[in-house]
Structures are given as structure tokens and as C-alpha cells.
């Protein structure tokens, strides 16, 4: 399906290091989807539900969070807290009759890892399959 996708990614400083590699060009070279707007945060544990919901209010078709492995977060429980909030946003979206898959949490290794781009592609194709979201501008 072809339409202008808008996906917002909130990623912690540690799991999104690839976005800094090669002067910020490496992600592009690796085929990171241009539908994804990357927002780096010091720790995903600081993300509030309102921040995730605001991304939908701003028109996102999908929102996802990338944080450290659940048992290896730089800030101990940050990415576990983030996952809980993603779950709560998913439940609220479903109450509104919106597909819960539009919001996702990924726990990825820190540093430069191919999974960062692989998950971005996965998210891009998931949202593309779901189609335009109900909050799209």
C-alpha cells in the first residue's frame, strides 16, 4: 500500500548510537526507512504515556520505542518502565477501537547493531500493512 507513512521512534541514547555513526549518514546508507522520525531520549524510562500519545495526536500512524535489553538497561529498570507504558498506551488505543500494533516496544542491544535498522524496517512494514492511522494529518 502506498501512502505517506509517519512513524515516530523514541530511542534511548544507548540503543540509537548508529544514528550518530558516519556523521549521521550511516542509518541512511543502511536503508533506515525515511518514514521514521527518530527522537533520541536519555533513557526510555523517562518517557511518559502523554509523550507517546502526543506523537499520535501529531498525526503518527505508528509509534515505537527502542530501549536497552530488559535485563541490561543502563539505568537498571528504564526500558522495563517504558515497556509497561507502551502496554498501557496499546490498551488505551484498543479501547478507542484502534489497532494496538500501532505502538510497539523493542529491547535491543546497545551500541552499533544491525537489529536497530531491521526493527525499523519491520515497524515500517507493519504500519504499511495496517494502513493509514485514524490520527493521520
Amino acid at each position, binding site marked *: 500500500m502506498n501512502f505517506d507513512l509517519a512513524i515516530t521512534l523514541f530511542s534511548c541514547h544507548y540503543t540509537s548510537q548508529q544514528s550518530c555513526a558516519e556523521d549521521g549518514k550511516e542509518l541512511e546508507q543502511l536503508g533506515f526507512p525515511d518514514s521514521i522520525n527518530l527522537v533520541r531520549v536519555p533513557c526510555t524510562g523517562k518517557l511518559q504515556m502523554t509523550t507517546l*500519545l*502526543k506523537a499520535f*495526536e501529531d498525526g503518527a500512524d505508528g509509534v515505537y520505542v527502542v530501549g536497552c535489553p530488559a535485563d541490561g538497561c543502563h539505568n537498571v529498570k528504564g526500558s522495563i518502565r517504558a515497556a509497561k507504558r507502551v502496554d498501557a498506551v496499546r490498551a*488505551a488505543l484498543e*479501547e*478507542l477501537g484502534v489497532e494496538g500494533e500501532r505502538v510497539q516496544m523493542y529491547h535491543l542491544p546497545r551500541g552499533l547493531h544491525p537489529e536497530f535498522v531491521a526493527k525499523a524496517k519491520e515497524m515500517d512494514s507493519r504500519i504499511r500493512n495496517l494502513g493509514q492511522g485514524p490520527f493521520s494529518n
Partner: protein
Amino acid sequence: MIVAERKPMGEIIEMVQDCKKVLVLACRGCVTVCSAGGEREAEILSSLIRLGMKKAGKSIEVSTESLVRQCDREYIDEIDQWKDDYDAVVSTACGVGVNFISNLKKDTMVYPALNTTFFGGSAEQGEWTEQCAGCGDCVLHLTGGLCPVARCAKSLMNGPCGGSVDGRCEIHKDVECIWQSIHDRLGSFDRSAQMEVIAPIRDWSSAGHGGPRKVVRDDLTV
């Protein structure tokens, strides 16, 4: 504290569907402590109302404010400062707050965002349990400080019933039989004899069965 939970979003969207602007009004009392209706939850609800209305193809302005409490006249009067900003208030206070706004603000339509559930406490983060039913005639001095009114499924005054098994209530194995706990606790204070005392038939009029209740303190009224 009074414990409450947000209503399903479908119900809340239905309430506001004809509104053009609503004020989501948080309460900084009990519902803040039980994470159901404080400032953070009111911001989340405001966002969900905007999203729900957008999905329904309707536009709505949602503002978010909070009061120290919604169960005292002095704070309810503060609503007047926002009166041009809403067609209706969506209150994230307990049912007392919604009633108080209705009692005191004749021109304000107010909707409840929460289901008010019980008086309880939180022994584990993110978990609240019922502890008292506000019966108006407390018997905790006779029951080792554990409430049979709120915490026994049958509100027995002379428990346990025949369904108590291994300290669990017959309604569900996850539920403590509070009468077993009362027995054990009285025993630990060498007061097991209290279990032999038959509690008389109870007059429940103080528990709300005699109509809405009221407390008047002459020493505080001027």
C-alpha cells in the same frame, strides 16, 4: 484513601460526543495517590479524548486543570475562573467530587471519568486492596484491627463461615479468609477468647441503610 479506576474510553467518548470544548479536571487528593485521577492521569485522559474524537471525525478543544480537592466548597469555587473554557467538565475525582460540582455549580454539566471503587490502601506498588467499607460503627477493636465488614465476602460478624479452607475464602482461593486472619491475630495477642463472644445482630442503619449519612460537628460550625 478512596480508590478509583478510569472508566472505559468508549463510555467517556460517548459522554462528550456533543461537546465542543471540555475541561478535564484533576483532583490532587486520594485519586492522585491511587494514580487514577491526578494531574498526570488527567493529561493522559485529555489526550485520549482528543484522539477518540479525532477518530470519530469530530473536533473538540480539551483543556486540563486541577484542584487541590473536589470535595470542599472553597476549591470547587475555583472552577469559575475557567467557566468560558468548557461546555462540560470531565472530572477525574471520585464520585464525591462529581457530586460536589453538581451540588454547587448549577450551570455546569459534569461527567465522571472514574469508577469509584473502594476505601483501600497500597501494600505493593501498583496494587490497591479494599480495607474499610465506611460502615459508621467500627468493630476493629474486637477483630484484631482487621475489618470483617469490608474484607469478609459475607460481611459476617461471627465468622468464619463453613467455607473457610486453609486460610482462604470460599469465593476464591486468591482471597484471604479474613476471619481466619482475625482468629490468628487475636491468638497472637493472647486474645483468642474474643472469638467466643457472639456479636449481636447488627443495626446497619449507620452503614447507609438508613439513607444518606451526614456528620455535623457543632464545635466547627459558626
